[in-house]
Every structure is written in structure tokens, then in C-alpha cells.
């Protein structure tokens, strides 16, 4: 009897554990089916939006405002945001793509979006552009081309305009008694500035190597040595990153580092610490982009300036290169195309996102939208944003089809960043830095 009782207890325990494990799974399944049924039921259509920030209202306030304005204008559609930090978001989207659970619309890293497109999980947005000609016109060709495959499939549309360059603090330059940079300032003039600033104990250019991607201003310099005239051959294996032009450019970055252009703790600093150095007046220049305009309006105010980086006299390529390109795209899950009401809602959202009303919200929030509408906005209270707009309006300056890193795979992209920082810090010689990029490219 005792033995039977023990058996019953043992089986009971085993069953309880097994049930609790399966119970978890069942509970998850039911909750996801609840969400699914919730989406279908009622008069409201719910569309999901996967974002690369954990808190859209705080970290991407302009997008948050556009979503709210859209929901007000379309009370029958609700936008459900699924936000994660960038790396977590990209990895989650990859997993969701595998399991067929992608959000309806989602932000995607430019190097990963083509891979998602190749795996057939993205909706072709060419139909959307045909259905909304105003949006098609408002998005310039280079903005659309950045997310179009060679077979003509429009697998994404730009999230925003990506405008990058160097911010500078006029007051710091005045304090040191030297002229601030302006568009057209040469590399030799920059070196003189760096030396003067460094001697006075000021960080010439705030950079944080711990966030390896924070090299935007230096990426623009690559195009001044003919990046886009070479990159196709490099990616086809017919040419190399280690070429005489890029070697000249990397040697110059190396010389800047040796001249003391970067913070002494650059290796252990983050992009955010670099920004803090700049906003606190410890640094004269800061490698960043338009997304920091709001913060710089408040911290530096009327002393803020913006320029496209140095020009190079030893290069025969176009030097008047600005950087106003498509940022990472918004993509739409292919599954949306199978559900007409969902597809209508998604198209309505995209039409609103690329509307004049949304463009106005963007400008008011110091963000350059991907569209080219002319919008009346008072920029006097936004000196940083005004500085960017002024730089964009400067005649003769043009932007390449994309930011140089955005046409590379993730691994090559990461090595490019690493090589630029390695050259700045003197960890790599210029040649070694370029050879490393070639080495990773060959593995692709």
C-alpha cells in the first residue's frame, strides 16, 4: 500500500511539473491568440509598429507625435508600438521574420533590410507609391532608391532624412581666438585648429569609441575620396578598400589622432559622453547629426554651428559633399498584403507619415523628414536646427545616394567603424585598418 502511495505521489509530482511546463506554453499561445482575436474584433483596426527605441514618446518624440496625430485623424485605426533598443529590435525582427510574426510596419537597419527582402518576408511598396502619387512625388528619387532592390522591388521607405556632420561651438573657438570652421574649410586648416584647441586643453572633436558606429562625419569624408565610384567594384571583389585614395584619407584621420583631435579617454567613452563633453563646453566640435539639434538648442543655443567636415586638396573627387540621405527604412510585413483591411490601414498610416502635416510636425521637432514639402516653420527659436537647414541650403553641395556604411553588410559595416576608430586611436596603421575591412569583406 505504501509503495502504491509513493508511486502515486511520484507520478503526481512528475505530472505537476510536466503540466506546469506545458501550461506555460499553452498560456502563451492563448494570450497570442487573444491578441489576434482582439485585432480582428471590434470596429477598430490595430496595426503594429516595430520601433528601434524602447520608448518612442521619449526617444523619438516626433514619431510619437505623428502617430498621435494619425490616430486622431483616423479614429478607427490604432497604432500599437512594439519598441526595443536598436540591437535588440534588429535581432527580434530577424527572429520574428523566421517565425512569421513580424509587426505590420517596422524600422529596419539598412544593412539587414535587403536580407529580409531576399528572404521574401517584405511587402513591395511600389503599389502604395502608385496609389498615393503625392507621396511618390514628395519622396525624392535617392530617398526611394536607397530601399529598392535591383529587380525594382520597393522593400522599404525612408524613416527620416539622415543628415550628419560636425557641430561646433562658436564660443569655444572665440575663446581660443581662432576662426570656427565653415563649409569648404580644408583638412590643413582643420589640423591647425586642432593643434590650437589641444594646446589650450580643449577637446577638438568629441568622439566616443565605445559606441563604434558614432563616426558619421568621418563617413562623409570617404565620399570626398570617391567612395561611391569605387564601392561596386569593391563589393564585386574587383577592387579593395585598401586603395591609394582611401589610404590617403585614413592617413589623415591617423594624423588628426596624433595631433590630439580626440579625447584622451575616447577609447572608453560612449557617444553620449562625447555629447556631454560638447554640451558642457569641454569640446569644440562634435561628430553627430540633426537628431541632436533639440538638445543642442537648449545647451548651446545661438553659439551652435554645423558644417559638413573638411575638404581635401589631394583628392580629385568632388569635395562639396553634404550628407542628406535616406535613413534606415520603414518596412512592411508581406503578411499585411493578405489582409485587405490591414493593408488599407497600413497604407493610410504610411500616407499620413509622408504627408505635409507630418512634415510640419517633423520640422517643429527639429527633424528633417524624408519628404521634400515646403513647410512654413519658425526656426529662430531653434538655432541648431536652423544651422543644419542653412548648411543644407548652401548651393553647390550635394549628397551621395546613401551614407557609405549603409550599402555594406553588418559585418563589413562593423569593421569599417572599427577601422576608423582604430586609425583615430592609433591602434591600427591606416593600411592595417583598410586591410581589415577587406579581410571581412572577403568572408561575406
Amino acid at each position, binding site marked *: 500500500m*505504501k*509503495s502504491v502511495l*509513493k*508511486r502515486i505521489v*511520484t*507520478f503526481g*509530482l*512528475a505530472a505537476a*511539473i*510536466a503540466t506546469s*511546463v506545458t501550461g506555460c506554453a499553452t498560456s502563451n499561445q492563448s494570450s497570442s491568440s487573444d491578441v489576434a482575436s482582439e485585432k480582428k474584433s471590434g470596429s477598430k483596426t490595430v496595426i503594429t509598429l516595430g520601433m528601434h527605441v524602447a520608448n518612442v514618446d521619449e526617444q523619438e518624440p516626433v514619431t510619437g507625435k505623428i502617430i498621435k496625430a494619425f490616430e486622431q485623424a483616423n479614429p478607427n485605426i490604432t497604432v500599437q508600438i512594439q519598441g526595443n533598443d536598436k*540591437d535588440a529590435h534588429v*535581432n527580434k525582427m*530577424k*527572429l520574428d*521574420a*523566421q517565425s512569421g510574426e513580424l509587426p505590420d510596419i517596422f524600422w529596419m537597419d539598412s*544593412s*539587414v533590410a535587403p*536580407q*529580409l527582402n*531576399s*528572404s521574401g518576408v517584405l511587402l513591395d511598396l511600389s503599389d502604395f507609391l502608385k496609389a498615393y502619387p503625392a507621396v511618390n512625388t514628395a519622396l525624392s528619387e535617392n530617398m526611394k532608391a536607397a530601399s529598392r532592390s535591383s529587380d525594382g522591388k520597393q522593400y522599404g521607405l525612408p524613416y527620416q532624412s539622415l543628415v550628419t556632420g560636425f557641430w561646433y561651438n562658436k564660443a569655444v573657438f572665440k575663446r581660443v581666438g581662432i576662426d570656427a570652421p565653415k563649409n569648404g574649410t580644408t583638412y590643413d586648416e582643420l589640423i591647425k585648429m586642432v593643434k590650437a584647441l589641444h594646446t589650450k586643453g580643449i577637446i577638438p572633436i568629441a568622439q566616443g*569609441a*565605445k*559606441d*563604434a558606429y558614432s563616426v558619421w562625419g568621418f563617413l562623409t569624408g570617404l565620399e570626398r575620396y570617391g567612395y561611391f565610384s569605387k564601392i561596386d567594384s569593391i563589393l564585386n571583389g574587383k577592387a579593395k578598400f585598401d586603395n591609394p585614395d582611401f589610404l590617403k584619407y585614413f592617413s589623415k584621420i591617423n594624423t588628426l589622432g596624433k595631433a590630439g583631435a580626440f*579625447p*584622451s*579617454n*575616447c*577609447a*572608453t567613452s560612449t557617444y553620449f559622453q562625447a555629447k556631454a563633453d560638447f554640451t558642457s563646453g569641454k569640446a569644440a566640435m562634435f561628430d553627430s547629426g540633426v537628431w541632436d539639434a533639440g538638445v543642442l538648442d537648449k545647451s548651446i543655443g545661438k553659439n551652435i554651428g554645423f558644417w559638413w567636415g573638411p575638404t581635401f586638396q589631394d583628392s580629385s573627387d568632388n569635395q562639396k559633399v553634404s550628407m542628406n540621405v535616406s535613413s534606415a527604412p520603414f518596412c512592411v510585413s508581406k503578411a499585411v498584403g493578405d489582409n485587405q483591411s490591414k493593408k488599407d490601414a497600413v497604407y493610410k498610416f504610411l500616407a499620413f507619415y509622408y504627408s505635409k502635416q507630418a512634415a510640419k510636425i517633423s520640422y517643429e521637432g527639429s527633424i528633417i523628414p524624408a519628404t521634400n514639402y515646403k513647410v512654413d516653420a519658425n526656426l529662430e527659436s531653434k538655432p541648431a536646427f536652423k544651422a543644419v537647414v542653412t548648411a543644407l541650403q548652401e548651393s553647390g553641395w550635394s549628397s551621395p545616394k546613401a551614407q557609405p556604411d549603409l550599402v555594406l*553588410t*553588418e*559585418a563589413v559595416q*562593423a*569593421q569599417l567603424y*572599427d577601422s576608423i*576608430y*582604430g586609425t583615430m*586611436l592609433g*591602434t*591600427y596603421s591606416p593600411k592595417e585598418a583598410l586591410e581589415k575591412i577587406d579581410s*571581412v569583406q572577403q*568572408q561575406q
Partner: protein
Amino acid sequence: MHWLSRKRNILMMLIPTLMIYLVYMIIPIAIAIGYSFTKYTGIGKAKIVGFNNYMRLFRDHTFWIALKNTAVIFVIAFVLLMIGAFVVALLLNLNLKGKSFAQSLIFSPAVIAPIIVGILWVFILDPQIGLINAIIRSLGFGQGIKWIGGKTLTPVSVAIVYFWQQLGYLATIYLAGLKMIPVEIEEAVQIDGASVWQKLRYVTIPMMRSTISTVAILVITGTFKIFEIVQQLTNGGPNHISETLITYSYSATFTNGEYGYGMSLATVTFFISLVVIAIYFGLSKERGRKEVS
């Protein structure tokens, strides 16, 4: 008792635990090893490439840097923790005033999340904003030392931070082992007139062998898993010179999107830690046999 001693019943009772272990440990490890033979970006289908990832790994300069850093961290942390935690446990085992307070204080770093430990130590070790260099500068001894972010000291700093974090936890395990030594034996040793060293050498350490083994395994596996501290202190940089095997594996997998290559790094790390544990057990078994004979 008879019922419990039957093989079939023992197996049945083990099944739930084994199932969980299989699903959450064995199968993921097997899958990771499987992916290490593929080229996979995380999207679409993985392409089998045989031993390519392993051949690439042995040619990869950063892999050797990561291996060297991991070895430096392991050796320093192992020596410091095995000896330091034991000494702390011996002190805590004495009837000293304020013992409980000291025990809580020494244990406290173990309850702090590793990511916070990393952030905390950035403010101590950073060459420019760190406390140590601020003191060095204020005393007029130059601009300070690159404790982190330089070419040599980062793995040493990581080992010190790990030592600081783990000391109290491991000392507590040692202390539990010390408490299990029967009082009668200690009294007998005292009556026989053994010195403190003799007591330690011939009674305490031999009777603590299983506790020492447990601590050793925790230190070995722990040092091969140090991730957050490195991420916070240097993020593996600058230019991968402070990568450890595990941070490099993460970087290859999730930053570079090379899942196959990242898994080959993880697999090698797994087997290296197994080998180190096997060597430790081999050596301690040999030592135990010699002592018995």
C-alpha cells in the same frame, strides 16, 4: 527505502529534471554546435560550410587576443579568488568583533547586478574621469595610468573587478565548508599541539576538498562567462583589444550578424572551459591520491 532504491523509480523521479535540462541546456548547446558549421545571418536558411568557421577562427587575430585576455583574466581571478576567498572565510570563522557586519559588507558586491558593477568601476578606472587617476593627478604623479582602454591593463582590471564582485560569495561557500568540520577533530588537533599552519595543512584543507572543488568550478565557469563587466568597462574595445571569448562571440553573432561564426567561437569557449575543468579535476585527483598514499 527499498522502493527508492529501485533503478526504474529513480529514473522516473529524475525524468522531469532531465527533461528541463535537456530542453534548456543540452538541445540549445547541440543547436549552437550545429550552427557553428554554417554560414547564417539570422535570416533565411543557414548554409552548411563545414569547418570553414573553425579554420577562419584560427586565422583570426582577434580570436587570439580574446583567448589571451580570457586566459589572463582566468589566471588572475582564479589565484586571487581561490586564495583570497579562503583567507576571508578563515577570518570570518574566527570569533572576532563585528564579524556579522564584515560578512554582510564583503558579501554585498555579490548582490549587485554585474552591469551595475561595470558602471560603478568605470567611474573608478576610467583614465580621464576615474577616481584612481584623479587621486594620482591630485598627488602630482602625472596624468595617471590607462587602467582600461589601453593595450595591456584592461584584462587585469577586469579580473580585479570580478574578484571584488565574487569574493564575498565564494568566501560564504568556503565558510559553510569550514562550519562542517567537526568541532571534535579541531579540539583533538589542538590537544595534540598542532600549530595553526599544521592544522590548516593537514586538517582544514583536506576536509574542505569538496568545497574547494565546488569553488574552483564556480570560478572557472564564471571567468569564462564574464560579459557585462567587459561590456561596461570597454565594450571589448578599443578595436577589440580587450575582447574576451564570450564578448567576441556576442559581437560576432549580434553586432556583425555572423551567427555561424559566433557559434563557432561559443563552441570553442565551451570546450576550452570543459578542458580546464577536466585538467583541474585531474590534478586534484592526483594530489588526493598522493596524500592518501
